[in-house]
């Protein structure tokens, strides 16, 4: 008898939870949640201080529009589909609606919860800007917009060609931005009318390009990307074998590998430099630096804690970047190439260390600068120096830690 697809989805979700449970325990034991809670408390404290004295002319609607649009546009879909399903589930494509609806519901609940949290944080600020719409009306409308946006994201997944898909995504982003702005800045009735018209326009445009009935390949790729992201995260805390990763070209970062001298002792250095530049690790470091720099700059600009709010934010992100950069030592640890090619094994640890330090420094400098510049502009030199020096000091400190870890792992090997 063929399995019920809804039961299959639930079973796969359960298997996933069971599979990651040991890694979640490792993360919990690592002290990482405590750092996150501390960072959240620090940010919350800075934000509360900021709410008490919002500067004149602060772009309340602009900030809310940006934040809420980002959350509305984020539409993850966890399908648990694997390429083997092209053999086993494809013949049941006509029934896949039941399967995907569960995935969609799961994504909507997660996205909706995040949206509600953001509203909870944003609404006190919004009220200070002479809000035309009350929270009681705003929240349900935002949740409805979230559902419409998720539906739009599904239609985009079905579009066969990348250019058309990107066009529809851009249109959805522009219309969502406009609808959220209207909702926050204009009277509710007019904003609702605009949002409905925008949703209708988006739905009509998305029907024009060639579409798949069910976007199998897109969902396989998306699921594989999601798994890799989880694995990359868990690998920071535990030894997890790597699955194949989709590389990103990133020529601006990969160029550095071209500067490495062509010699046998630099073989691992060359390999690791390209690995950091092109793999998920590089992407994660870039994202971490971008988010950290933004958070550090915002916290530093808020003037909270006498200009000191940005420095600890930058330190935390620099610390996280150092931990992440150190995971390069795990890359290719189990690669068969090590046994087939005469790679200089004695240089492997040193190469991993050099690449990790370079990558950490490349993250620490912008993180430090982003948190240091706002207090510098306000003439507060101590927090400026502390933000920058703290981030830079973390580089040798983390290098020392990584050197010890490498020595320990070499002993274990």
């Amino acid at each position, binding site marked *: 008898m063929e399995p019920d697809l809804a039961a299959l989805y639930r079973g796969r979700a359960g298997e996933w939870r069971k599979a990651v449970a040991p890694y979640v325990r490792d993360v919990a034991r690592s002290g990482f949640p405590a750092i996150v809670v501390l960072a959240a408390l620090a940010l919350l404290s800075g934000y509360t201080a900021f709410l008490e004295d919002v500067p004149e002319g602060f772009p309340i609607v602009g900030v809310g529009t940006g934040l809420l649009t980002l959350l509305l546009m984020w539409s993850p879909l966890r399908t648990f589909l694997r390429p083997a399903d092209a053999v086993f589930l494809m013949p049941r494509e006509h029934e896949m609606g039941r399967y995907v609806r569960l995935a969609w519901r799961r994504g909507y609940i997660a996205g909706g919860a995040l949206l509600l949290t953001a509203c909870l944080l944003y609404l006190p600020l919004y009220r200070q800007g002479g809000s035309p719409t009350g929270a009681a009306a705003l929240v349900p409308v935002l949740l409805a917009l979230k559902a419409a946006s998720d539906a739009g994201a599904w239609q985009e997944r079905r579009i066969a060609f990348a250019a058309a898909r990107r066009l529809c995504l851009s249109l959805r982003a522009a219309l969502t931005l406009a609808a959220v702005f209207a909702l926050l800045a204009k009277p509710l009735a007019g904003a609702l009318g605009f949002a409905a018209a925008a949703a209708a326009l988006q739905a009509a445009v998305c029907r024009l390009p060639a579409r798949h009935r069910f976007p199998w390949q897109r969902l396989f790729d998306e699921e594989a990307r999601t798994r890799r992201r989880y694995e990359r995260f868990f690998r920071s805390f535990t030894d997890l074998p790597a699955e*194949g*990763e*989709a*590389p990103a*070209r990133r020529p601006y970062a990969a160029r550095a*590998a071209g500067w490495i001298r*062509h*010699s*046998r002792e*630099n*073989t691992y250095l*060359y*390999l690791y430099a*390209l*690995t950091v*530049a*092109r*793999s998920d690790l590089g992407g994660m470091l870039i994202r971490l630096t971008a988010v950290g720099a933004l958070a550090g700059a915002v916290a530093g600009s808020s003037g909270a804690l006498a200009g000191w709010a940005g420095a600890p934010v930058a330190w935390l992100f620099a610390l996280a970047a150092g931990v992440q950069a150190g995971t390069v030592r795990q890359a*290719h640890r189990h*690669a*068969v*190439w090590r*046994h*087939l*090619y*005469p*790679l*200089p094994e004695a240089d492997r640890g040193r190469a991993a260390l050099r690449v990790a330090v370079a990558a950490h420094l490349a993250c620490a400098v912008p993180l430090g600068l982003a948190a240091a510049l706002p207090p510098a502009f306000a003439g507060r030199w101590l927090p400026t120096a502390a933000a920058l020096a703290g981030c830079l000091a973390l580089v040798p400190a983390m290098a020392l830690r990584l050197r010890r870890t490498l020595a320990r792992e070499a002993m274990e090997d």
Partner: protein
Amino acid sequence: MEPLVVVEDLSGGYSPRRPVLHGLTFKVMPGEMVGLIGLNGAGKSTAIRHLLGLMKPLAGTVRIGGVTLEEDAERYRRSFAYVPETPLLFDELTVQEHLRLTAMAYGIEEPVYAGRAERLLAEFRMADKRTAFAAHLSKGMKQKVMIMNALLAAPPLYLIDEPFLGLDPLGVRSLLERLEAEKRSGSAILMSSHILSTLEAYCDRYLVLHDGRLIASGTLDELRETAGMPGAPLERLFFRFVAPEGDAYGA
């Protein structure tokens, strides 16, 4: 002339209780191409894995370039290049970067690498793919990268496992022509394949494996003599050796 590969009384496998290989003994000399043939499960890949040093022998020794892996791992590994049945590449490296990494690993000077890489890219019609990621290549193209890596290293010995799978006809021809050239320059080649007609056209000697045992070896004429089938092609000889009573061609 010293043999490049000396395998003496090699028994091996994944479990000491169930050995796959039983007492293999053979040599490969510089400047010769040896075909390793056998049915699926005969032990060809296991034998190659033992030569690569990926598996520990249960008994016997494997010497490449005059040393065992335990005696001098670096010299052992630098003595050969391996082309596996399934390409093993780094997804985040481009074709050109794989060639450079290989050159660095084998200690090949940059100008030499640059010249060889260009020649190989042209020869295997991969010049327009030099900046493509391995992850984005077809199976055949990945196999070409593995072959180019091996040829770039120009080692004394090539270990090649089923090289023709996924290769286009021009790729097969380029590979065979290059292997011929490498053989003439003194390199040895040990190649496993099921395409017996190709092996017959290019190999100097053959090792016939069956159920983990070396049941016949020698030149084509020596195999014909052993089988008592003068003038028979390799394919018929092979059937005679592995299925003497049920020869697909009839005795």
